[in-house]
């Protein structure tokens, strides 16, 4: 087996990443629990990461690894701030249903 080639063709990685991205988007749109919505956002981050690493491996270029590293950092920061917002909203509104937190609705 050729060392430089990917295990499978790059289109398979793109298709798998698109499927996971759509599952995450469906989770954000369909679920009304803020924690599961945040987890769906994590799924979407990781779909992007998978694609970065697949292309980095295909082109044998390290920049994709660096970008995936930054994505992981930003995802961790986003999860921490998102969970803090969930806690604050729960503390003030006593609910976790995102449809009931509608005080900004005109």
């Amino acid at each position, binding site marked *: 087996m050729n060392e430089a080639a990917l295990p499978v063709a790059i289109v398979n990685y793109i298709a798998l990443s698109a499927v996971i991205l759509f*599952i995450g988007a469906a989770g954000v749109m369909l679920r009304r629990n803020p924690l599961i919505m945040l*987890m*769906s956002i994590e799924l979407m981050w990781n779909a992007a990461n998978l694609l970065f690493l697949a292309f980095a491996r295909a082109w044998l270029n390290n920049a994709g690894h660096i970008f995936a*590293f930054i994505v992981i950092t*930003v995802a961790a920061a986003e999860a921490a701030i998102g*969970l803090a917002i969930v806690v604050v909203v729960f503390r003030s509104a*006593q609910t976790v249903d995102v449809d009931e937190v509608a005080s900004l609705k005109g």
Partner: protein
Amino acid sequence: MTLFWILGVLLVASAVFVISQRKPVYSVVGLLFHFAVLAVFFLTLNAEFLAVIQIVIYSGATLILFVFVIALLSSGVAPFSVGPNRMPKAAIPAGLIAFVALALVVYGILRAPLVNAPRAATTSIPGAVGAPNVFGSVADFGKALFTTHLLPFEMTAFILMVAVIGVVALAGETTPFVPSLRRARIIEREMREALLRGGEE
């Protein structure tokens, strides 16, 4: 080839498990499995350092944060462990449209004239996972991180610092920026009464 399909099926199944569970704790367990499979996937792509930090950062830090928040909110007044499970009214048509869009995207991707990258674009040589000084090894990654891409690395430190300050400002003991709903109603009523009094005088 076989490994790709086994891992891919596991990834998609655990992702569906995450968004379909009623209790968030089960979703966390599904996400943990998803991240573990993804770490194996990263190893097949010669990204050994990122496979390790995938486990350490996501499974060790982020998911523990989720579990802590679920435990913290469950001890309050509402049975948070169950949480809202209502689906929006447009769930079924929206799901169908999203599925058709996904099918079109995947079909387009599979038909797209993509080529695998030429060998000439390499920055480092490929090799077995774990071997020193090949593409994706820790030394290779570290050299790129601390020489070519030093500025993005410094910016991640800044992002993390801003996140820490933001979390403390949001969810700390005293929250000056977020008055409670009850206090906001009291303030609103007092303002209205003050206005009425002003009208009488």
